[in-house]
């Protein structure tokens, strides 16, 4: 496709972690990411094509600020072309027997497994997340998701949505930058299994794994136009969701954009599913297993640099164990290694973009201004790139911005409670309702609490677990519709028995 200059080869300047015992670096080879082209067009109708416009965007490695590639800013004309290609492919794809559609998806799952090292490294480079997470979490889940929905393609009559459920048509899918390839899998796998065709727009800071996925579609022999990928920023996304010949809109991202899309499609017959922001409470009761809880809290907020919509960003700790828990948590945070995403020892990688770093920095500053107490472990950060120390705030009130707004970074707000009822009250005191955590050894207390939390996913004595069989999605302003499991089929099926 294009020359590989040495842009992936420049190492991240090592950060020296004080107070940690030294680890020898264990770097993954950036060359494993395979060839990154100098510039990319859109993937439409089974081939890469140039944009009708001349505007190009750049994607950078957030750990080095080096430009990785240029890609096209999709125009309305590009979007229209992609939708036409998807529409053209729909008739054949939707009439293909489910058992045959399934085999394409099984092929994709297998190719993802085969190429998982390449994809994991590419994802780390483009996104900034640690290779340990792309290798052990993102990629295995991507393959599993395709494998799971592959099996549904010829069993839709038995899925509980009535006899002969039908696909909707062309699905417009807009995904975020925090789990680029995993979000693609969450969107594309159920859409194809149910017989829809797809136009997908990846995020403008992380387009590379989606563009690489085009090559997987090629290898799998997927019919032209079944999956189309149009790159660009929010303008391209808006053009795609607004396109009159789209039957389905699926969006994962921020609540304000989700609102705008819901407004945009009002009055149409487009079916909408939204997976939006969160401000999850992670509730620790006084009888919780403390060491496990500390691990869960750390995983809850520092996994993927806190760029997780279901992150446990509000720690609600029972007052009587606050000091003990915070001591243990700070000790643990002192051992987190921040730095080169491609080092297999790294716990916290780079913040995805300068813009996101600015937002995290601004909200953390607001936390201090509003009177919360800020703490972060001593650790040096690499010179170039976008970095933010794992940070916690104590003395946070429910009115503080850091307790109400989604920070989407490695920043934990600590609040306290005295009674279980108060914990539930505070946990639910947010317009969001995506996830929550509960830590206690008492089973009946878990069920009592889980029953009262207004959140779509509740992790008890664990956190941030995902599985293709497990429905994921929010209450309230965290969106609607579910992804994963049998529930994840419904947003892509025409089940309008409501048309009485």
């Amino acid at each position, binding site marked *: 496709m294009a020359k590989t200059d040495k842009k992936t080869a420049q190492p991240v300047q090592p950060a020296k972690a004080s107070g940690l015992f030294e680890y020898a670096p264990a770097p993954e080879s950036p060359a494993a990411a395979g060839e990154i082209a100098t510039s990319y067009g859109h993937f439409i109708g089974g081939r890469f094509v140039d944009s009708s416009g001349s505007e190009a965007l750049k994607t950078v490695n957030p750990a080095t600020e080096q430009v990785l590639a240029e890609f096209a800013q999709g125009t309305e004309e590009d979007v229209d072309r992609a939708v036409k290609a998807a529409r053209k492919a729909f008739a054949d794809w939707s009439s293909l027997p489910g058992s045959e559609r399934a085999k394409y998806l099984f092929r994709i799952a297998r190719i993802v497994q085969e190429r998982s090292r390449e994809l994991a490294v590419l994802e780390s480079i483009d996104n900034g997340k640690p290779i340990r997470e792309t290798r052990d979490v993102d990629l295995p889940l991507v393959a599993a998701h395709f494998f799971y929905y592959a099996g549904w393609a010829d069993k839709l009559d038995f899925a509980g949505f009535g006899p002969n459920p039908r696909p909707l048509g062309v699905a417009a899918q807009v995904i975020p930058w925090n789990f680029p390839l995993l979000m693609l899998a969450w969107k594309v796998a159920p859409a194809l299994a149910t017989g829809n065709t797809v136009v997908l727009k990846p995020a403008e800071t992380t387009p590379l794994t989606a563009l690489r996925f085009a090559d997987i579609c090629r290898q799998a022999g997927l019919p032209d136009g079944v999956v189309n990928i149009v790159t660009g920023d929010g303008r391209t996304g808006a053009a795609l969701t607004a396109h009159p010949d789209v039957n389905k809109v699926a969006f994962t991202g921020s609540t304000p954009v989700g609102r705008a899309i819901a407004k945009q499609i009002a009055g149409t017959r487009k079916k909408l599913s939204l997976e939006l922001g969160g401000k999850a409470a992670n509730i620790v009761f006084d009888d919780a297993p403390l060491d496990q809880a500390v691990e869960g809290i750390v995983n809850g907020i520092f996994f993927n640099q806190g760029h997780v919509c279901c992150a446990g960003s509000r720690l609600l700790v029972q007052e009587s164990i606050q000091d003990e828990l915070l001591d243990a948590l700070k000790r643990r945070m002192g051992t987190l290694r921040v730095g080169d995403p491609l080092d297999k020892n790294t716990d916290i990688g780079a913040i995805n973009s300068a813009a996101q770093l600015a937002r995290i920095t601004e909200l953390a500053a607001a936390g201090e201004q509003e009177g919360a107490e800020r703490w972060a472990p001593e650790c040096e950060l690499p010179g170039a790139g976008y970095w933010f120390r794992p940070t916690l705030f104590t003395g946070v009130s429910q009115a503080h911005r850091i307790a109400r707004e989604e920070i989407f970074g490695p920043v934990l707000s600590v609040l306290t409670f005295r009674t279980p009822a108060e914990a539930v009250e505070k946990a639910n005191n947010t317009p969001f309702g995506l996830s929550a955590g509960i830590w206690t050894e008492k089973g009946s207390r878990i069920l009592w609490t889980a029953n009262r939390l207004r959140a779509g996913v509740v*992790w008890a004595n664990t956190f941030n677990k995902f599985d293709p069989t497990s429905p994921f999605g929010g209450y309230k302003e965290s*969106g609607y519709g579910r992804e994963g499991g049998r529930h994840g089929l419904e947003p892509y099926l025409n089940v309008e028995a409501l048309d009485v």
Partner: protein
Amino acid sequence: MSETAMRIEVFKTYKLYVGGKFPRSESGRVYEVTDAKGQWLANAPLGTRKDARDAVVAARAAVKGWSGTTAYNRGQVLYRVAEMLQGRREQFTAEVAAAEGLGAKKAAALVDAAIDRWVWYAGWTDKVAQIAGGANPVAGPFFNLSTPEPTGVVGVVAPRAGHGFSLLGLVSVIAPAIATGNTVVVAAAEQAPLPALSLGEVLATSDVPGGVVNLISGRTADIAPTLASHQDVNALDLAGAIDPEGPGAAAALEAAAADTLKRVVRPAADPSAADWTASPGTGRLLSFLETKTVWHPMGI
């Protein structure tokens, strides 16, 4: 004086049904309701935006208790509604006949269907969790269970068209929402609100807790937008949002609902062609539910 001497009939003062009580509209105003031929039937309260907001407060207050009752109990309450409606069959037959311009026989069949629809949904209350939820076989040592929960307060624009809209259609939108533990505020069909207002009297005597169902008559263009934009309404059923334009049109209501990301059930593509006697399926029953998935590690 003979037994057949003319007797002056006692008219009914139709009132709103809010929080289990029968208030007049805060507007102090009424509007004329006529039959299909334009004959005066009754005055209905001209419910206002304020009445709608008061009803939302009542509906919100009722959520905790109603969603907290056992599914078995909710089923019995819904069955009780069918029992009470059966006892008032003649009254509703007359009201439906007048509202929809039907003969007595056809109207009676629609009332019977409405009674049966309550029975259908009464049976659903303790089954829906088993068809909408279940265990998920995750690839790891975890207990993982998905269960449906009520969305909360549902704003309902009652059907205004289609065969059987005035009572059967109304029941077909209220019953599925409350069967699963939601509470509702209903903008009654503007031109034919009498069956809805009378249904309030049935509900009040059926062990349905006050506030679970609230019924407001008046201008749809006033009441529906209030529900669509209300911060404390979680979902909208736009069955009767058939205005082609203006604040009561489905597109405008859906756009207003987007600000608070309400779950929205759109009106049918052609509402006037709707036949409310058709099998309702599970579409509406499953529309006002949130799936909650709980994980717990397995181990010793």
